[in-house]
């Protein structure tokens, strides 16, 4: 299922770029900068809908979006559901706590059953890397990755880039420091792929046990001390310490992590004066980020959440819109 970037059609007076239509969105590693720009500009024009008293446009009326969550999530799931509903798509959600996963049904079976009910698009969150690629092999309908294991979370990175653009108006040449548990972070991977493609200078830092091997081959600078990465940064991106994924002895205690790697007033002082602070949520307050920073005027963490709905509306629209 491929479209071409130049292939535009007109629908009700709006021009729809068809380059994403019918496609999967599995990773930013595989996404072109042009397609990323397209999502961001479309999100820009759709964001206005969120400020309306009646938050509903008929664009995806009659479309059905299935949301499969095999891992707990609050904001991503709600964000996708609301994005679909604001566009008038119907949604059906399954999470591992309530679906027949507990009865031992395979992912392939669950997905194929759902697709036989007339679903037009599947969104999945899963704890295993590559699961969305697997789902895309199982299903004929488009698949959107809502986070797969330690691999990617492409819509998160797109909303992060959207938020950065809100404050900095550009990506090219910006210094972005991503701090924390890079190893287990799909958010870090997608942001690294997305930001470097759009011309940012990305540095990463965290305890070396939480930096993956050969990370610098992805075009970033890696540091074992956060201050070095933050030096002169325009954006300080704080990652959630993924306590549920710490299978081994990768750091001694949350206390020690906070003392040497947590983002507080002191560490943030290495960044530019007008640097913004981001976090994908949910936060471990007092571990990777102090409350005074999280709630400070420099924090754009809640803007990220709003951006998330707009970006996901854009993605659903670009993949599902303009059919007939």
């Amino acid at each position, binding site marked *: 299922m491929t479209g071409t970037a130049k292939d535009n059609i007109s629908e009700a007076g709006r021009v729809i770029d068809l380059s994403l239509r019918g496609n999967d969105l599995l990773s930013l590693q595989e996404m072109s900068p042009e397609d990323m720009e397209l999502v961001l500009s479309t999100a820009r024009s759709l964001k206005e809908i969120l400020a309306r008293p009646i938050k509903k446009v008929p664009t995806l009326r009659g479309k059905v979006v299935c949301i499969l969550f095999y891992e707990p999530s609050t904001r991503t799931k709600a964000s996708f559901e609301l994005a679909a509903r604001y566009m008038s798509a119907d949604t059906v959600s399954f999470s591992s706590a309530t679906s027949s996963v507990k009865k031992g049904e*395979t992912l392939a079976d669950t997905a194929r059953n759902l697709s036989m009910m007339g679903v037009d698009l599947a969104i999945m969150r899963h704890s*295993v890397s*590559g699961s969305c690629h697997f789902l895309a*092999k199982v299903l004929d309908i488009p698949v959107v990755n809502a986070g797969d*294991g330690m*691999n990617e979370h492409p819509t998160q990175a797109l909303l992060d880039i959207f938020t950065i653009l809100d404050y900095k108006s550009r990506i090219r040449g910006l210094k972005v420091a991503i701090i924390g548990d890079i190893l287990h972070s799909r958010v870090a991977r997608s942001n690294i792929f997305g930001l470097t493609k759009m011309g940012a200078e990305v540095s990463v830092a965290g305890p070396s046990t939480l930096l*993956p091997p*050969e990370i610098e*081959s992805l075009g970033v600078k890696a540091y074992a001390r956060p201050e070095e990465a933050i030096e002169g940064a325009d954006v300080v991106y704080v990652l959630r310490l993924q306590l549920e994924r710490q299978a081994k002895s990768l750091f001694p205690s949350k206390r020690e992590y906070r003392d040497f790697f947590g983002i507080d007033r002191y560490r943030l002082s290495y960044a530019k004066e007008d640097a913004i602070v981001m976090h994908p949520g949910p936060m471990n307050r007092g571990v990777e980020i102090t409350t005074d920073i999280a709630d400070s005027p420099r924090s754009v963490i809640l803007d990220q959440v709003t951006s998330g709905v707009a970006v996901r509306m854009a993605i659903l629209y670009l993949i599902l819109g303009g059919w007939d």
Partner: protein
Amino acid sequence: MAGDLLIKGGRVIDPSSGADRILDILVVDGRIASLSESIEPENGATTVLDAAEKIVMPGFIDMHVHLREPGFEDKEDIETGTRAAAMGGFTAVACMPNTEPACDTDAVVAGILERARKKAWVRVYPIGAVTKGRAGKELAEMGEMRAAGAVAFSDDGSPVATAEILRCALEYLKSFDAVLIDHPEDMSLSEGGQINYGLTSTVSGLRGIPRESEEIAVARDLLIAKLTGGRLHLAHISTKGALDLIRQAKAKGLNVTCEVTPHHLILTDETVLETAYDTNTKVNPPLRTQEDVDALREGLADGTVDVIATDHAPHHIDDKWVEYDYADFGISGLETAVSLIIDKLVLPGVISWMRMAELMSLNPARILGVPGGTLEPGAPGDITVIDPDCEYSILPHNFESKGKNSPFIGWRVTGAPYGTIVGGKPVMYGRRLVL
């Protein structure tokens, strides 16, 4: 008793004698009777096989196969696994003990041999467990198993758990003249890992298994082999570092041998990304990097590697058509090995046909101490015939194995097993099983 068999006009390559020329081979009463430039059939009862344009070698022996029986017959059984072996050009297989129950008593060894007598298409050599239940705590009754027909001992699927139990096993086996085959892996480094640790694990988000997991275990094994003077064979070597350690040990005169698999000689971890997380790329030890592939090929050429073995690990589709982390480790290898070795190593000139016969026939026979590996008169009539020109596509629905789990599906290859003759009886000829 099998009738006489005459194989005419093939290019005979036999590393035990160094022969490489067009010869006819006569097999009488299941044994090689004579080789000569022209042998005519003596009577009408002689079966004559035309091997013109073909290559005739001593029967290939795959010393690392999982037949899965008893216990995992949904994945493979002795009949289907040996049908796969026959199709793949192997006249004998040695089967690993990680069955259910584990092959850790003489009763299980005898059961496998009895089953093989009734159902097998090629020779089956059971490998017994080193420790009871392969649990790594107490030595299994290796003497009894040896007497019942086990040819070697291994806890494969897992490493022999500790240096101490390995020391005891290598010492104890001296009384029974059998090799110990270890699966070298430091489990503390590999736990939870899915693919090779490195750039590909970083990009894919799959947990990595460092090469050092294998290399630390190889170093341990070599030191214990030196300490005991026991007979050690190292299974499925996959890294440059491990091979370097083995090369050094051999240079110092240590009595150690090792094997590599076709997939580690051909594929790298990048295949995982190229195939969008195809679980058929999931194997233990994992596919490594080009540097390792190059080193393993060098090891084939310089003699550090003794054997090519498939580590045939068939799995049911249900165990592979799942998320990557949930898939079983393993590649179904019996029916692709010969073609891949010819296409990727022999025809491009990495190894010679003679070296291929050494790696796949002579050396495994010597290491296991089983008959075969040679076409000298008096040897068993176990013969593999190769069609070096046959070009075809690897398709899983053509596999006799129940395990269709191959990362080589769809590959176009040149060179194929053409005949498999066991004890003078063709079990496969013309790329078809012979009933």
